[in-house]
């Protein structure tokens, strides 16, 4: 579900990006200009970050983390469903702005005040403010759920230091969600007061302060980019280790680096604000803190390389995405250090150089990682292997298209092209870079179409996949593909890092179990989460249209459902022993 909805929003955001690139293909075009262009760029950013990247990550977290820790499900299936619906309806609210009100929000995905206050923007921003709040609650609940799952539901013997890297990164990412999302929520509430109730938090004429928005936004926003990239680190670690047939080099150093990155991620928000006028002391401190992040990131890169060193590196689509990840993410990381050099950032800030940088990290990093994870875990999630031939085409078209799109943008930025402009003048050396960039965007579009085709073909094909198609190392490969709804017939017993590999090496060929086969308790499905999310959506529209009684009704409806949920006992149901498909041998 997360994957489907996230995928849908990803296509939407991608289409918006393509339109942006088409407008910038040649100088002085006027297909999408002024406010229309600003709506496109705002919706592209907002959709990609909040409604494509986050849910696709959550999809993998949901599907894989329980399997990697030997759990039957996440800790709170009810909250999980609620989170899903809140995220989805939040996206619906945001995108409804295209058709309702006065068009989509146009103040950028960063929605800097006072451009996002009512004096300088139209109703679209109301959809942004309320859509993100609804979705944000969902994401936050999801984060808590994963934290509790990983802390409480690990199989016997699976100590923290034996957790697979993907689960570790899921853990740190969830912790970041827990601490970062409240900052944006507070910010959105302040903006909501300004927009709906005549507040003046961001109105300088009435004693407000416009820079507060940026601080709160980036206190959320910077951890957010680590929320996005850490799971990709985890995927790449698992994939490289599996396909090198070696354990992850320096597993404990990797864990340490992940935690350190997560921690430092909270200390550097103001490097997005070097030009705001914070003064040399603050600028220097944030510059130094930013550079420091390069150290744990470098540790990761070298550990991946040395995992492959001495191994038997198998090349297939899943591993190609991870192998391609290393140089592209490296470039993104290096331009990140460059951006951390505060005085030089005065030149980079708000130019195409920044666009190039964060696409190298988010696309070249996170998206590559997600594709890798998708090809790697597809058999476990859906019981079929994605087509390898199309997979290679998918990878190469994307890899080339991606570099064509974003590599020239470094130079465009340095040569004086600001970001978020709908056109540029001829004869300033900007034509070629922009043209190449747009061609690259078509390359990526082609690649995504190939991927969709691959899904369709794979879905239609008749195939059965063994439990362990890749010669895997971790617990998810001990159960059938696709994973049954109860995941593990018997809770496994973990005897080391890479639990399955340990058993393979001892010639057991099978994981040992921590409990006898017994009937399995399952939660019953419930419509309550969906209805609660509908209630909040209702309330959001009430706020957007200033119809307070609709807003109140929506809120009360949700509260009533919450009380029902609290008093009603859900006994769940059992899957009897006869119905459990047990015989998995690997």
């Amino acid at each position, binding site marked *: 579900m997360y994957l489907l909805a996230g995928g849908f929003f990803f296509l939407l955001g991608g289409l918006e990006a393509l339109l942006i690139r088409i407008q910038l293909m040649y100088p002085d075009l006027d297909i999408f200009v002024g406010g229309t262009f600003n709506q496109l760029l705002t919706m592209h950013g907002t959709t990609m970050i909040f409604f494509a990247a986050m849910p696709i990550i959550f999809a993998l977290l949901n599907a894989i983390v329980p399997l990697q820790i030997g759990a039957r499900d996440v800790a709170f299936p009810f909250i999980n469903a609620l989170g899903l619906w809140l995220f989805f309806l939040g996206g619906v609210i945001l995108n409804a702005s295209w058709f309702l009100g006065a068009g989509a929000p146009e103040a950028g995905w960063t929605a800097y005040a006072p451009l996002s206050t009512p004096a300088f923007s139209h109703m679209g921003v109301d959809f942004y403010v309320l859509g993100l709040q609804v979705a944000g609650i969902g994401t936050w609940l999801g984060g808590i759920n994963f934290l509790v799952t990983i802390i409480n539901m690990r199989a016997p013997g699976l100590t923290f230091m034996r957790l697979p890297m993907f689960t570790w990164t899921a853990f740190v990412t969830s912790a970041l969600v827990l601490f970062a999302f409240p900052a944006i929520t507070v910010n959105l509430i302040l903006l909501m007061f300004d927009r709906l109730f005549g507040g003046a938090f961001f109105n300088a*004429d009435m004693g407000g302060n416009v820079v507060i928005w940026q601080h709160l936004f980036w206190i959320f926003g910077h951890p957010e980019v680590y929320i996005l990239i850490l799971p990709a680190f985890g995927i790449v670690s698992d994939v490289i280790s599996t396909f090198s047939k070696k354990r992850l080099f320096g*597993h404990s150093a990797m864990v340490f680096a992940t935690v350190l990155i997560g921690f430092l991620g909270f200390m550097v928000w103001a490097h997005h604000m070097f030009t705001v006028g914070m003064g040399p002391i603050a600028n220097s401190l944030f510059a130094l803190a930013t550079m420091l992040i390069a150290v744990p990131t470098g540790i990761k890169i070298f550990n991946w*390389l040395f995992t492959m060193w001495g191994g038997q590196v198998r090349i297939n689509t899943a591993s190609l995405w991870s192998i391609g990840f290393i140089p592209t993410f490296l470039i993104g990381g290096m331009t990140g250090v460059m951006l951390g050099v505060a005085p030089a950032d*005065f030149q980079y800030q708000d130019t195409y150089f920044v666009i190039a940088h964060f696409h190298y990290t988010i696309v070249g990093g996170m998206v590559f990682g997600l594709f890798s994870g998708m090809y790697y875990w597809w058999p476990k999630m859906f019981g079929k292997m994605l087509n390898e031939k199309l997979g290679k085409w998918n990878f190469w078209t994307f890899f080339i298209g991606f570099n064509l799109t974003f*590599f020239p943008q470094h130079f465009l930025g*340095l040569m004086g092209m600001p970001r978020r*402009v709908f056109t540029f003048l001829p004869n300033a050396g900007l034509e070629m870079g922009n043209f190449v960039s747009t061609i690259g965007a078509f390359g990526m579009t082609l690649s995504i179409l190939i991927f969709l085709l691959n899904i369709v073909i794979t879905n239609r094909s008749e195939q059965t996949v063994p439990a362990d198609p890749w010669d895997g190392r971790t617990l998810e490969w001990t159960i059938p593909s696709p994973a049954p709804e109860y995941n593990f017939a018997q809770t496994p017993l973990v005897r080391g890092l890479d639990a399955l590999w340990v058993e393979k090496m001892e010639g057991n060929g099978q994981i040992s179990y921590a409990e006898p086969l017994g009937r399995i308790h399952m939660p019953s499905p419930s419509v309550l989460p969906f209805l609660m999310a509908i209630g909040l959506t209702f309330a959001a529209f009430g706020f957007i249209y200033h119809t307070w009684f609709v807003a109140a009704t929506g809120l009360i409806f949700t509260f009533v459902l919450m009380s029902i949920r609290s008093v009603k006992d859900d006994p769940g149901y059992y899957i009897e022993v006869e119905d459990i498909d047990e015989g998995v041998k690997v």
Partner: protein
Amino acid sequence: MSQWKKAWRLLPLLAVMMLVLTGCGQDPFLSALTPRGPVAEQQFYLIKLSIYIMMGVFAVVMVIYVYVLVRFRHRPGQTGIPEQIEGSHKLEIIWTTIPLILLTILAIPTVKITFDLAEKFPTDDALQVKVIAHQFWWEYEYPDLGISAAQDLYIPTGEKVQFQLTSEDVIHSFWAPALGGKTDTNPGMVNAMWLQADDPGVYKGKCAELCGDSHTLMDFKIVAMDRPEFDAWVEKMKEPHVSSSDVAEGEQIFADSCISCHAIDATQGLDIPDFAPNLRNFGDRVVLANYFNMDDETIAEWIKNPEKMKPGNLMPGFADELDDQQLASLVDYLNTLSVK
């Protein structure tokens, strides 16, 4: 299998090609890579230093990367299990320490230049300019000289100019890449920075912070001239405009329709932000309304329908009020608003 090897060979080629293709033909008055003053130079120095360090790192990583991929590829028929190495403390320490050293090399000039660029001058030392950003135009006040101007910023060459930047509406960002990096203009606050142009010339500037529908069109120019010329410019700016009788009709129209928003006296209204650009030296503008060609036709077009050319700007259109003949005489008058 072989197909991906081939493509790999293409990659560096591609990168080099792109460098050549995009790197050349840049505009020396716009690009941050062609610094024309000490601020941009120091920043360019840091850009280069960090690029060199990063390229070194990239090269090292890529050598290991390519070696690993070639040497440790799974070969058909290869069996056996590689040694399961846990890790190496020594290596971990090495690749923690070396980056730390490299970062220190980068950090020292970073901090030094951060403080250099933040230096503020005593008022009697440097020329002071107040920059007031508006949606979507720029206002400049020279408090010590007693004049104000719009759109094109005139400065003397070879000396530091001290800026105080603020905004009347949303956040904009003042950026002339060839002279130096940007500083945001925040409503309700005043930021400081300094720039210096080494040589005379017309440097291109841009608003770098999304500020509304016409953000893209919010350029500006910095006209740098040698000190004597600059002083002469200041003196002329101080004089009231005297119009000739040839353009009396245009002058009358201007007095009826335009002067309520546009001042044509550069010494008037200092300390209060203007509502519209001061047109005292409009005839000398490099471009019209920061973006468009300075020819009679375009100027008339602008007056008729500014919203069409610059969506969201605050100037009303005069298409209904003024006929073509009146517009022509108005434009003639506007062109005489010059201090050259």
